[in-house]
């Protein structure tokens, strides 16, 4: 099994590779456990693509000092009849007399792995087969995510919650990637991945509680809506800072590696997040440390109002993997089957070979950046409409399910009605629950509140007592 990294005739011609075929090479697998890791063929593939730096063992080693021979002889030696070669740290480098600059990009953009087309037709059998149960479950959760997002968004518009982030258009990314992982895999989300948490078992009521910041919120009302976190679902609390979670995931992978746990960490981020310093260094670190982490980039075309052309000039994110020595792949972000297969394969690679993997999913941000944004100000309604209708991940997947005979329009109607009812109910219940008590302002800053916080709490309680009308009723309880 191998993954195609990049087609690069112009880049690589100096190194004379034997390029493998384009596209993914898969063995037809009927179940989950049929990934064989042919390391020789894999590293053979890597060598063929001329990376020139892969003479290292791929399994993780605790003692890496033997590989760090910084004082390697930097002398040139003559090959037998060949051009001169520089024996440089990292591998031999051939000389050339061509004054050729590598072009800024390849002639053709990196190809995108896809299985289902817009009409829900299978274009290939190169994917991980899933059972009807799993497929229906995936679809159900995609619909649940879509329903939750739509209704919560409306609730925000009605003033019932203050803020919300939708994942409209990215349901396949959310659910299919979550389905391909295990609960042992720690997830470090940005903020548009609530579907992953949904799949793992966070209930609609818990989502609603967090958005309303009521006293049943497991974050105790401390974070903005949609900044979920749940230790029992191995989903790390969302922070508003962009891409700070990417190095966290590398640290978690390091922790898994130290403890030799059969799991990998995964982190999600958008196209905009890849411009940050944290992204760069995290990929670099993960490659150097051989950490089992999946970097999942949701390239949805927009970072608030910044289109990708203004964000970077590389061919998306997938090409950057190679710059760090990381395996990468581009997948169709609206194709649940493709995402499922890619994440399964990436997870296997990350764990068995102890290496990071980069996945770029091309998709579209169907909604606004958040409820504080109105994207029609900077993009056309036609563009939004086209993606929403023609590329909708749910309709594509549903068509495939219907073709397989696992779904029909009655089931659809029933599901939608039930979901809508559940979500509305969750909101209604959450709205009635009271807010967290004043004491929750001061707990969890440290493991135990220090004296200055005790003081400050006392001062606040005294103030509330003196001026009860300035504060909500029962606030001090």
């Amino acid at each position, binding site marked *: 099994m191998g993954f195609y990294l990049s087609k690069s005739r112009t880049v690589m011609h100096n190194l004379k590779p034997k390029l493998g075929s384009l596209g993914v090479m898969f063995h037809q697998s009927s179940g989950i456990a049929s990934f064989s890791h042919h390391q020789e063929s894999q590293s053979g593939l890597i060598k063929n693509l001329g990376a020139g730096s892969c003479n290292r063992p791929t399994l993780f080693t605790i003692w890496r000092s033997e590989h760090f021979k910084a004082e390697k002889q930097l002398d040139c030696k003559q090959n037998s009849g060949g051009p001169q070669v520089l024996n440089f740290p990292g591998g031999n480098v051939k000389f050339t007399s061509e004054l050729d600059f590598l072009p800024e990009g390849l002639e053709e953009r990196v190809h995108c792995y896809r299985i289902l087309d817009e009409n829900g037709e299978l274009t290939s059998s190169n994917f991980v087969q899933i059972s009807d149960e799993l497929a229906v479950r995936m679809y159900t959760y995609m619909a649940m995510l879509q329903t939750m997002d739509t209704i919560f968004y409306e609730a925000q518009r009605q003033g019932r919650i203050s803020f919300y982030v939708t994942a409209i258009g990215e349901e396949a990314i959310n659910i299919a990637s979550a389905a391909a992982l295990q609960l042992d895999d720690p997830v470090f989300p940005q903020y548009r991945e609530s579907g992953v948490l949904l799949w793992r078992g966070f209930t609609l009521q818990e989502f609603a509680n967090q958005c309303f910041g009521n006293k049943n919120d497991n974050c105790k009302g401390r974070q903005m809506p949609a900044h979920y976190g749940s230790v029992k679902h191995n989903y790390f609390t969302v922070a508003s800072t962009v891409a700070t979670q990417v190095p966290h995931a590398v640290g*978690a992978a390091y922790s898994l590696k130290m403890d030799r746990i059969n799991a990998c960490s995964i982190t999600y981020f958008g196209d905009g997040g890849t411009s940050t310093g944290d992204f760069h260094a995290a990929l670099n*670190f993960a490659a150097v440390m051989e950490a089992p982490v999946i970097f999942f980039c949701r390239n949805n075309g927009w970072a608030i109002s910044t289109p990708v052309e203004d964000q970077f000039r590389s061919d998306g994110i997938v090409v950057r993997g190679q710059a760090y020595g990381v395996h990468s792949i581009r997948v169709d972000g609206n194709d649940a089957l493709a995402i499922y297969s890619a994440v399964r394969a990436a997870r296997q690679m990350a764990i068995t070979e102890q290496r990071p993997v980069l996945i770029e999913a091309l998709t579209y941000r169907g909604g606004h950046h958040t409820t504080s944004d109105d994207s029609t100000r900077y993009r056309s309604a036609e563009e939004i409409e086209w993606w929403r209708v023609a590329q909708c991940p749910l309709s594509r997947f549903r068509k495939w399910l219907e073709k397989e005979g696992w779904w029909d329009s009655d089931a659809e109607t029933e599901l939608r009605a039930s979901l809508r009812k559940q979500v509305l109910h969750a909101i209604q219940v959450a709205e009635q629950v009271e807010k967290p008590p004043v004491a929750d302002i001061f707990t969890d800053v*440290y493991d135990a509140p220090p004296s200055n916080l005790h003081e400050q709490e006392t001062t606040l309680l005294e103030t509330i007592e003196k001026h009860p009308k300035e504060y909500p009723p029962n606030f001090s309880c």
Partner: protein
Amino acid sequence: MAAIVQGIGATAAPSASSNKFLLSSLGSSLLEKKRNFFVVRSDGKCYTGLNQQQRRAQNVVTNAVATKEEKASAAVGSKPGHELLLFEALREGLEEEMDRDPCVCVMGEDVGHYGGSYKVTKGLAEKYGDLRVLDTPIAENSFTGMGIGAAMTGLRPIVEGMNMGFLLLAFNQISNNCGMLHYTSGGQFKIPIVIRGPGGVGRQLGAEHSQRLESYFQSIPGIQMVACSTAYNAKGLMKAAIRSDNPVILFEHVLLYNLKERIPDEEYVLNLEEAEMVRPGEHVTILTYSRMRYHVMQAAKTLVNKGYDPEVIDIRSLKPFDLYTIGNSVKKTHRVLIVEECMRTGGIGASLTAAINENFHDYLDAPIVCLSSQDVPTPYAGTLEEWTVVQPAQIVAAVEQLCL
């Protein structure tokens, strides 16, 4: 340990005069400008390595309370404990914790095979492996972030900033994530990380390498800050910081790494939130920390000769302040002098002044005096650099003024 100490310390030229100078492993001539520091020996004598420009007429002899037997339970025998340098004490504390708990790991630039820029992690990579003592690429924000991620998933990492100033690059991770995630997650994820490194004004290291980061970090909610100043408290605070479930920033000082001291053989852990009574007194409370402790003690000798009785407290805990110890002292002496290395604006001294005024205003007979560095980047020239740092003469003058 003793053998290593001897190996490094043995380069001291045994001069006949009473000025014995302990040299660092890079040490050369006694009069070289580069290596100037205070040495506290086990018998309580303190010698200073001064260059010609700074040599004072009198030798300073001071009893550092830390070497007294207040904590050593087994004072049997003539010389209990073992001698080592401050950086070795840090390493000893680190090593003991790494032995005790396999989750403890170290990450930072050049901490592995190189042993750390100040040799705090020397030998640890050979003992524990490359993974537990991890060399990182140069991206402070990211390896601090990595440490936070590792801490949230069960490890207890110690992140070393090669110089505290480099941690400015990690400010985002420290403030927005390290300090906050325990709170914003509703207590679900804890971050038992230790961030440490040398800071403060060194010997002509230039403005960028002479930062006092404690003033920038002090406002971040969710973190604790401690500053070590002796080998004894360095080891104890290191162990306490590692065992704490809160994120702790441990401030070391570039010029204090070669302080020699005798510390107990038995295991000890200090309290992160406690201040240290260095010298009890009656007339004035002098609050200080880190390197300024030694300037204060030097001034104290002069003051004692002049008939004053200063009480010197090394506050050690920069966040939160040990207002209990400080308060008791203020209630006794009614006069406070703060001596710090931070800049005047927004430094630890500024916060401490505010805290004492707020809490103990009625006990003060005079306004609090705070001696700090000026609000300037640290200049390179030795003379200029010396005068941006509070000197013992200024401390003496301030006390005299305060006790009029």
